[in-house]
């Protein structure tokens, strides 16, 4: 057995023992509290009886006898050796009897004033319960002082022992927390911070993998935005102009998070170099399909729409590998769907060719747009997208922002359920 495991078991056992003993002590302390409570209620009844007797002696004209009771039963001065002692006070709180205390206030410190009229406090350094009972129709109040130590008898000492044991157990648990639990929590926090740092690096790498600067000149105006659901996502976009050629891509790796972002990075890093080598959109799609089929560790697939636009002739060649329908002005771009990438090796991807009209606006997006859901779990859908497309939206930046705002407004307070990527290309 490993040393750390042995230590762990030992510590866990010690904590268990400490917790059990602590709980047992607590249970005992509570049982003494209940016992004390019972005694206090008995004291209250006794004091009420004393008050009734004193009142009766007054009514019978036997005031001297009544006062004599306080002289005999009061042991207030002999504190520490009585269980209870009585005093008679007047309305100002001054002692009337016993005579030895007469004319002085009965001084005790208050720890707790209870709703039932019982005051807990200390008298001459002894923990006492003070009960006051006014004698109706007279200016007198009978005050009872009850020593907690005497009320609990031997239990008083046993309770003290339990309190000490409990204190020791709490100290022991705090020590365990200090030497074992706190470092463990610190380790978890450290790991989490490291994971967050790694994710932040992954996000920054991913952001570098997608195009950061877009062409904007007299022939083309392009822009794209990405809103991942988690720190990193699986949506791809890119747009590069080389001479009179514009290369573009948008895609979506099925799945989310770090696994999808790995595949997204692999796919996006291979597209533009292959465009630059002169490969057509369908050739690149076929190549990527085989590559993903061969290396697909996470059983993912990827949808992709990639193409080239000749900015002089406005001829666009594109290949759609299972991606969402893109917009050309206020309608969908004609598209022939191929199978997604990563399904079956050797799939022959086909591409299409169209000539774009002057002033063409192309809007590409991932399914996070059409499948955005509101609080009623309704989808944004293609109809709302077409409605939005009918409105003028200005530059590529404004178009992207407008569509994202439209989706966010539709979604309302419902949570984001997918990555969202939007890319606009305006051809002049």
């Amino acid at each position, binding site marked *: 057995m490993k040393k750390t495991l042995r230590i762990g078991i030992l510590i866990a056992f010690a904590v268990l023992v400490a917790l059990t003993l602590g709980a047992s002590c607590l249970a005992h302390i509570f049982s003494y509290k209940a016992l004390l409570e019972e005694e206090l209620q008995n004291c209250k009844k006794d004091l009420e009886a004393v008050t009734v007797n004193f009142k009766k002696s007054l009514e019978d004209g036997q005031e001297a006898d009544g006062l004599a009771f306080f002289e005999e039963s009061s042991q207030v001065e002999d504190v520490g050796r009585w269980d209870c002692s009585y005093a008679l006070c007047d309305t100002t709180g001054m002692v009337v009897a016993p005579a030895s205390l007469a004319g002085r206030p009965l001084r005790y410190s208050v720890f707790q004033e209870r709703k039932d009229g019982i005051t807990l406090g200390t008298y001459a350094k002894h923990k006492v319960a003070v009960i006051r009972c006014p004698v109706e129709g007279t200016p007198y109040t009978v005050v009872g002082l009850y020593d907690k130590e005497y009320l609990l008898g031997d239990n008083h000492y046993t309770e003290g022992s339990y309190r000490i044991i409990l204190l020791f157990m709490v100290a022991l648990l705090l020590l365990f927390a200090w030497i074992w639990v706190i470092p463990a929590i610190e380790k978890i926090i450290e790991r989490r911070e490291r994971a967050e740092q790694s994710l932040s690096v992954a996000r920054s790498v991913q952001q570098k993998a997608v195009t950061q600067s877009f062409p904007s000149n007299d022939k083309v105006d392009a822009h794209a935005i990405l809103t991942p659901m988690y720190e990193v996502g699986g949506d791809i976009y890119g747009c590069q102009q080389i001479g009179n050629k514009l290369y573009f891509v948008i895609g979506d790796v099925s*799945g989310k998070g770090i696994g999808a972002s790995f595949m997204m990075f692999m796919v996006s890093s291979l597209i533009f170099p292959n465009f630059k080598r002169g490969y057509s959109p369908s050739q690149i799609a076929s190549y990527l399909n085989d590559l993903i089929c061969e290396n697909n560790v996470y*059983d993912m*697939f990827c949808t992709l729409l990639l193409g080239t636009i000749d900015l002089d002739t406005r001829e666009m060649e594109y290949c759609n590998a299972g991606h969402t329908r893109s917009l050309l002005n206020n309608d969908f771009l004609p598209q022939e*769907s191929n199978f997604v990438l*990563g*399904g079956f090796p050797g799939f022959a991807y086909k591409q299409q060719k169209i000539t774009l009209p002057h002033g063409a606006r192309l809007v590409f997006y991932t399914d996070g747009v059409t499948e955005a859901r509101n609080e009623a779990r309704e*989808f944004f859908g293609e109809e709302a997208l077409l409605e939005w497309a009918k409105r003028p939206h200005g530059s590529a930046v404004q178009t992207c922002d407008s569509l994202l705002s439209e989706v966010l407004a539709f979604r309302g307070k419902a949570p984001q359920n997918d990555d969202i990527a939007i890319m606009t290309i305006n051809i002049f």
Partner: protein
Amino acid sequence: MTVDIKELDGKTVVAITGELDTFTSEEFQKALAPLMEKEGLHVELDMAGVDYIASKGLRVILALAQSIMPSGGKLTVINLTPAVRMVFDMSGFSSMFAV
């Protein structure tokens, strides 16, 4: 989401009801796992009760096809609802599997 698997006329008919979103697709994948281990199966997915499928759901169907087709198996998909048919058409699943 419920998945009902039956043997019928030499085919394994899988009737699915409910939404195949990112979360329910996990259950869908677990339900189909035993089929993925068998060879030469003809699986028929009855999607009449499915009105939404997320890419995770497509991934599970693709994984099933990838596991049964190399050993001579076959995957057919029937009774697509309009919303699911649109996703199948867009992703090329309609042309790849007999729908």
